[in-house]
């Protein structure tokens, strides 16, 4: 029988996989940002799990608080850029981002 910790680890890994998949495959820029957030959910799960496993839950909580703050800022910046690009192209598609290449 698998331990709870390992099950949580599995859930986290699947979250990260789903988030990365979303970043790689999705064409919608806001959704790419959402993908980042989904992967970050998985990472925070890892951290709280690590806190429980190592017995340093308080420390891991401080980490999570900081990550949440950064997550918000990243979401803001990502959304801002996506909106800015929408204003330029009239579309959220990441396919428009091909001016810089080579």
């Amino acid at each position, binding site marked *: 029988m698998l331990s709870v910790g390992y099950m949580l680890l599995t859930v986290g890994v699947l979250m990260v996989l789903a988030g990365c998949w979303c970043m790689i495959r999705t064409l919608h820029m806001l959704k790419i940002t959402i993908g980042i957030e989904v*992967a970050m959910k998985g*990472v925070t799960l890892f951290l709280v799990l690590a806190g429980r496993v190592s*017995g340093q839950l308080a420390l891991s909580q401080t980490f999570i608080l*900081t990550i949440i703050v*950064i997550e918000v800022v*990243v979401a803001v910046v990502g959304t801002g*850029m*996506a909106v800015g690009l929408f204003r330029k192209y009239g579309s959220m598609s990441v396919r428009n981002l091909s001016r810089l290449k*080579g």
Partner: protein
Amino acid sequence: MLSVCAHGFILAPIAVVLIYNLLGRDFARRHFVWFAGAGTVWQLGSAFAAFALLWRTGGGSYRFSIFWDMRAPGAAYFELSTLKVFLLLMIGLVSLVSVLVARQTIDANRSSYANLLMILMLGMNGMLLVTDLFSLYVFMEVTGICCFVMIAMFRSRADLEGAFKYLVMSEMASIFLLTGFAFLFMRTGSLRYEDLQGLTATGGLLEDRLVGVAMVLLLSGFSIKTGAVPFHSWLPDAHQSADTSVSVLLSGIVIKIAGVYGLMTVCRLFEGFSSMRTVLAVLGAVSILAGALLAARQGHFKRVVAYSSVSQMGYILLALSTGTTLGLIGALAHILSHAVFKTTLFANAAALHEQAGTLELDEMGGLEERMPKTALSSVIAFLSLAGIPPTLGFWSKLLILLALWQSGKQGLAAFALLASIFTSAYMLRLQKKAFFGHIRDSLTDVREATGTVLAAELLLTALTVLIGCAYPFILSALGAQGLL
């Protein structure tokens, strides 16, 4: 004295930001150079002072904390060491050049530039000063976000595109790093450097496997930040799209602090994992080659220079892969020379963009007779990049080659030497297309760069040559410290 300098690294940027935003909007816009300049000059001066003080005490370290008691168990603290102060000095230098360039290139968003530059400096200072991997990550993220915003703030299509790509790639790096930290944390219960030192994977337990996975993730994450091949894709886009004053920062210092310093820390902490050095060697070699090959066929001045950064980061990774003190010194020396010549080239790009109105290589040509000083500084930067004595680049490459040779990686040393040919090739192409040959009709009324951009170019060129000439003394001083 040292404590003033040390506290200043964290507090001074915040103070500048606070004071700057209290002032009137128009006043702030008009005088942004002075505030940003004051912050960078303070950084430069205090880094110098701290370097001198630390050097005199024999290269020890200085621990401090701000408002907190650092003697509490498990408390995080800040630490200064010679290596860190050297990198702080680099930050000050590159930021100063960026401000000098920005005075002429930036029109809109001046106050935002000043604010973000200060926060960026704070982020990079924090990355260097902290003694905890998680704090390192936090400040790295701050650095990253400042860069995204600085690239995106002009909101042209290219700006936003480059910034968005950088953001997503950088977040991927964050995910890798945080996962790696979490796995480490499971094993150790702490992420402080002193608790992590000496950690090795003994094999067997899942936690130990996770430590190995964590190593891979950390290496990959910091490699994305460094821009090593194959994690490099964001770098040329971001560099090309950003305003030149921001490109100076990105290429000159950000990729080195956020990426290379991170790798340096990881290497130092987990010396027991020898396969890490193999990874770095492979990444370095691939980066050198692929960066040079890609640089050789780009049509945009800044893109060539950006790919050249990829290639040069490869040299630094090779130096780190030796794991010796000489290798570390070689890496630091190359960080210095790369910072100097790459900022020179970007300052040239700023001058060209301002005077000739274009950075497409096909639209340039023969500008040497119109812009002799810019051309001269560009050629000297090229010599330094190609490793021709007595410029800075020669010495740092020499140190790297020596380090590789001494650590028994003769093949890699030969490879690095041969790859210099490619470096020369793409730089020669750049110089030829931009500055030599027949002048185009559309460019006949171009004039020499003026003001602070020219000043920055000349300052950096002088540094390249003067430090290059003074290098034997530097090496003998290092030898006297027993570091060589």
